[in-house]
Every structure is written in C-alpha cells, then in structure tokens.
C-alpha cells in the first residue's frame, strides 16, 4: 500500500490548516418535513412497537421507524443504512441517544415498504441487521461502553454481554408489555462511561484484586506522587524495593484498603489489575434519569458479583431475566423499576426476585453509606 497524502504537509503543519470549526450546523442535516415544522409539533403516537407518528401544527405528519443496532458498526453496514435512507427517506437518517437508528418518512404509505426492507435484512449468521422496536414500555437498546474491544481498564466485555442480554430480552424490545420503559446499561469498569449509575438495570464490570505492582519499570513510567494521590482510599504510598540487586523507587499498596477502582492504573501503567479469574460484573437496578412522577435516582447494587462467563454470560443473563420477570409481574402501569422496588420495599424486592442479600450489598463507602442504612423500625418481614 502506498501512502496517500490528503494534502497535509508534516514539514509545515500550519499551512492551510483549518481548526476549531466545530460540528456542521444541524440545519444542514434535517429532513425537509422536520425543518419545515421545527418547533411546531403538536403530539405523537406510537402506531405499533417501533413505529412513531409525529403530528405538526401544519397538519404534516412524520413517520419514524426505529431499529436497534449493535452500536459497533462497520463502514459497510453504515453504507447499507445510507442505501436504505436514500431509497425510502430522501437521504436522511438519525441515531438516538441509545444507539437506535431512526428512519423517517413523510407519509404513511411509505412506512410498510420501509419496514419490509428493514426486517428483511439479516447478517450471515441469521441475526437481524435492523430489528424494529424499542419504543414505549419496552426494553430499548442498551447503552454501553467498549470492553475488551477497545479499552485498557475493562473488567468485562461490553458488546458481548449486550448481545446476549438483548437476545434474551428480544421480545421485550419488540413489544410494549412492560409497566414502563426499562432502560439497561452496561459499563465494563467503574468509570462507567455512560449512565449506568442511573439505569433501571445496569451491569458494571468490577475487578476484585488489588493492582499488581510492576516494580521493574514503575519508577520509569509513572509519576509516583500522581499514583499516590489518585487513590481514593489512600491505599498507596511511596516505597522502595530491591529488584535484581538494584534499589528501585516504587509504591506499596495496603491491600485491604483497596476498592479495586483502577484509578491508580489510569495514572500509572505499572499497576494493572485485570484478572481473568476474579473479575466479573455487579448488577445494579432501580435508577432513572427522567423526572416523571418521582425524582431521578441512582441504581442500587443488588448482585455484588457475577463471574465473567464468555461467550454468552449465562448467569448474568439468567439473573437479569429473573429481575425483568419479577418487575413485569409486580409493577403497576407507569411504574419504573426503582419506584416499584421502593413501593414494595427493598426487603420485599429480594423476596420476589429470589436474589440473595449479602453483606456486600450494605454500603460502606464514606458518608453516602450512612444515608442508606435503616434508621427506623418500619421494615417488613
């Protein structure tokens, strides 16, 4: 392969350089019916799972078909999205916050051919390329992070768990049988790039062993004071050690103080903590970000640890199915998972889901912990 220059000249990097122009203006990309009725929408209806109709003051209607994606998408697949959008939607398409794709058309008779086209497209293995769904009281696409595909700190994969969870909950994606929307998230480490800490059900990758110290290189590749100050529990202090007859500056870790957050590793590459056997996931539930009825709230840890079981994470999937079923059975119409758990009480939540309550589910991290302990005799048996 010969190197093809775009016009950039490394000897004169500033020559002809364009910078700080920001994204293109959104009005360049709006479908005509959207642009025309911008800010003048009256109401909407979900005609069937995955199909929306928005009505404008002008009387115009826009029909949207929403499909799930794997988020990780190839150039080839995105070109296929473009082909579909060119054929049915006048060359416009949009993505949602939860990595669904929306194909919009400006009249009802264009919906059926669009749907047929989308549902007919499959990958070689048989999975759907563009499954229709994710509206209303359903499980929309899972917000997730990078995992083993692309990140340096994950304790679990993200794309794989998302695939197997969505396979399991596929019915709930394509129908609207739940009491309310049930939003899932997967983050592969405690950094939680995303909003795991506020999802109805969230999976979070966790490490369970303190970092391994690479004494040989630590002093060369790390700023020791940065690593020390990075630790939220003051588990790390500067230290010295003998390595192959030479004295080396390094760090020491008070292991029983470590909460396995990986923050020191972000600061210092000589402190890796991944461990195939002990890493895994925690499951959190009951978070939400909407202000509807009750305040936004954080997710709570209800399963402290599930082992990593690639490729299909059976224990994780089964546990999530159990929670979804209990919620579906027990909650009232419009009630989000967290509101349901609070209404019946968390002690009852563990009863009806059959999840085991262990000491690991009692918070012991700083001030916020105290506010989660019960200071009352108002509990249920």
């Amino acid at each position, binding site marked *: 392969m010969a190197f093809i220059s775009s016009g*950039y000249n490394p000897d004169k990097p*500033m020559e002809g350089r364009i910078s700080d*122009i920001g994204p293109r203006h959104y009005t360049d990309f709006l479908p005509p019916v959207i642009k025309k009725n911008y800010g003048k929408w009256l109401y909407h209806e979900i005609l069937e799972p995955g199909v929306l109709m928005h009505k404008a003051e002008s009387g115009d209607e826009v029909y949207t078909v929403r499909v799930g994606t794997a988020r990780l998408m190839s150039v080839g697949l995105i070109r296929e999205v473009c082909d579909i959008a060119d054929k049915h939607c006048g060359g416009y398409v949009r993505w949602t916050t939860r990595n669904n794709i929306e194909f919009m058309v400006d009249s009802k008779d264009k919906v059926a051919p669009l749907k047929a086209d989308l549902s007919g497209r499959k990958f*070689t293995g048989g999975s759907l390329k563009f*499954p229709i769904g994710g509206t209303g009281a359903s499980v929309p696409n899972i917000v997730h992070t990078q995992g083993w595909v692309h990140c340096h700190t994950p304790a679990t994969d993200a794309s794989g768990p998302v695939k197997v969870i969505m396979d399991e909950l596929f019915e709930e994606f394509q129908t609207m049988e739940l009491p309310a929307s049930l939003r899932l998230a997967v983050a592969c480490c405690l950094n939680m790039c995303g909003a795991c*800490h506020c999802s109805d059900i969230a999976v979070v990758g966790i490490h369970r062993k303190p970092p391994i110290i690479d004494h040989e290189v630590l002093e060369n590749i790390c700023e020791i004071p940065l690593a020390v100050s990075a630790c939220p529990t003051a588990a790390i202090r500067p230290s010295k050690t003998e390595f192959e007859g030479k004295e080396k500056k390094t760090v020491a870790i008070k292991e029983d103080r470590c909460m396995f957050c990986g923050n020191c590793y972000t600061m210092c590459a000589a402190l890796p903590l991944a461990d195939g056997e002990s*890493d895994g996931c925690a499951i959190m539930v009951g978070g939400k970000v909407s202000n509807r009825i009750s305040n936004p709230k954080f997710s709570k840890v209800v399963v402290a640890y599930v082992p*990593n079981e690639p490729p299909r994470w059976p224990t994780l999937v089964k546990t999530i199915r159990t929670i979804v079923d209990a919620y579906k059975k027990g909650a009232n119409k419009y009630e989000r998972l967290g509101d349901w758990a609070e209404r019946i009480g968390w002690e009852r939540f563990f009863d009806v889901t059959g999840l085991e309550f262990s000491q690991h589910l009692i918070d012991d991290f700083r001030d916020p912990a105290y506010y989660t302990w019960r200071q009352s005799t108002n509990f249920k048996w």
Partner: protein
Amino acid sequence: MAKHQTPMLDELTKGPWPSFVDDVKAEAARRAENKDGIEFQIPADVCEDLLGVLELSYKDKETHWKHGGIVGVFGYGGGVIGRYSDVPKQYPGIAHFHTVRVAQPGGKFYTTEHLRALMDIWDLRGSGLTNMHGSTGDIVFLGTFTEQLEEIFYDITHKLNNDLGGSGSNLRTPADCMGMSRCEYACYDTMALCYALTQEYQDELHRPAFPYKFKFKFDGCPNGCVAALARSDLSFVGTWKGPIRIDQKAVAGYVGGELKPNAGAHASRDWGKFDIQKEVIDLCPTKCMSYDGKTLSIDDKECYRCMHCINTMPAALRVGEEKGVAILAGAKAPILDGAQMSSLLVPFMKVEEPFDEVKELVENIWEWWMEEGKNRERLGETLKRLGFQKILEVTGVQADARHVQHPRENPYIFWKEDEVGGWKRDIQEYRKRHAR
C-alpha cells in the same frame, strides 16, 4: 477462510439481536475482496486481527489493550485516544488502534451524503469500524495508526467542514436531545443552544485547561432523553412556568378510548380500559389535578412539572407557554468519590440567541472551578468539598428554597466575618465583664 479461528465469538452470531461479530466479519470480507480497489492506508486485515485479539480476550478474560499513550493532532489536546495492543506480533493489523472522536451533528441527524463521506475517509484511513455513537455522544472512529491521524483530521476539516470532538481534561463534545426538531415537549431549542456553546467553546474543547473533564448536555424537557441530569457537569433541562395547556375535547377522547394513553406506549398488553382517575389524577405526584367526569383541572401552582400527565395524554396536554431551561450542576459517575446527580442551580432561565446569559454563567463557573478545583476533580466534587454556597457566590444566583430538598439538618453554619460585625474582639473588654 478466516485468518484467525474465533470459536467463542462465533457463539455471538446466534440469536436475533444484531451481531457485531457478524458485522466485523462481513467488514473483514469486504476489505479482503476490495471491490473498489481502495489503497487501504492501514493493514487490510485489521478487522480479522481485531476479532483475533477479542477472541484471545474471551479466552483470557482480560483485555489486551495497553494503557493509553499520548497521540493526537497538532495543536489539539483532545479528540484522539491513543491505543496500542499488548500482543502486536500476533496481530500486527491492530498494533496501533487509536480512536478518533469526530464531532456529531445536533440531534444526530445526518444526510447520507455526509455519512458516506465520513465512511469514505474511514474506509481509506482506518479500520472500517465505528461506534455509532460513543457514550459521550460523538462519532467514534475505532482504530487507526499514528501516521493517519493528521491525514484524517485534514480530510475531515477540508472535505467535510467538520471537526474532532473532545477528550482529556477539557470540554467534552456537548450532546443534546432532538428537542424541537421532532419533539412536541421541547421547552427550548436544545440544538441551537448546544451548537452555540459548542462553537463558542472550541478552544476549551480542543485544548485541555481544566482540572478534569467537563460535560454539557441538553434535554428539552424533564423526560431527560440524553440523561443530562445524571451525566453532565452542567445539565440543561427544559421546563416551563405557568399553566399546562389543556384541550378538553382530547381529554374526553382519552377517557372515551378514541385516543391511546401514553401515545400507545403500553399497547402490547391488556391493562384494561384507560382510567383517568387511576392513571393520571392519582399518579400526579403533587396531587394537583382533578377530573369531574367532564373537565380536567390542574392547580398549576402546585404542579412540579414532572411530565407524567403530559406523557400520558400527549394530544390533550401541552407544556406551558412560558418556556425556558433549568440548569443543574455537578453530575458524575462513581469514580472517585461516588456517583453524583446534578444539583439545581438556576431554577429557570429564558434561553434565546445569542445565549449571553448562559455563557456568562458557564464562564463564571469555569473561572472558579479552574482556580479551586484540584487535579482530576469534577465540578460536582469541588462543589461537595467547598459547598453549594460557593457556586451561588460566583454565579450571582440568589439562594432559593428550590435549591434544596429540605433545609440543612445541622446548625454548623459558616457565618462570614462581615455578617457578624467582625470577628476581632478585645479580650480586655471581655475580661471587664468576665473574671478569668
């Protein structure tokens, strides 16, 4: 014939949900075939090697990506995330696998023309794999070699009139809900405000000057479709003042069953006939609604604008006419000191071009946070450490009962010297009244 055997990943081609493994394989095949005779600028078998290393991770249950590494484009401190493999010899195609963050358009609307042009760049110069989109919101080009970074940047700016997004200790690419473009709930123009602030703060976006990352997110209403409240240092959530607009005829339509409650969101299950009393009136958290069998009334003064009734009867109820934004500060995920939600700072602000009032607020907060924030301390943590009063002080926002869930539970009040007539006292004067 695949370059690497991937028996574990192959399990992920089963089931109905779109399989990323199948997609990556198809991309590998497409590049191998190379129908258009493209002179790929990074190894053509990059997709095979990515599957190979992922299979290895599935076996080891550990990642094979090294810790970061500083790469980027000239003059920018963000936009590219360096990534190197720790097994480059086995998988040379992914020895480097840097991520390029590309600024996404507002509401994530695209023309296929623009998308195709982006894909052409990434076909030629990258792995052919993307995240649509990253968790922060931008388009994520997933994996290229160092030599390609300037070329990609040059192409994006020169050919597409587009730019890189943010990463590192700077302003991250702001993200918005689709707002007024297609949502009748939008209480302000999320896309206009997001675009204006993104343009205004390009310098902050590309040149890290902050203690740590900073995120803006824009939700058009309290439903919070981009989760502004949970994941941005400054969260802009649309809201309104004054009465919810009621169309009594449409209310009757819902009661009579002609209109589907919640726009049809529960249609797959038989929840029984719509019961306005049970499903709207009784669920109103502030109990400010009533229905006498003919007319729906709302005591709007008591409504806290949670959206439930509007979501339930979207054709009958509309947000109030006096629209604006509530601004909240300080959300973050758990690292380091635990998760934080944004806390209400400005209960209501009208937002209109050129958004000067918003910009003044943002700049006052930044000035303070850059001065007082410790290294790697998010705004929410600075707030927690120094107190909410400090942000009121620097922004000039008046304290208001709306700022709290309830007033403080302890009387350890930090009175200021000028509030108590000075702190200097004379012990001799004191002793005149009190023996030692």
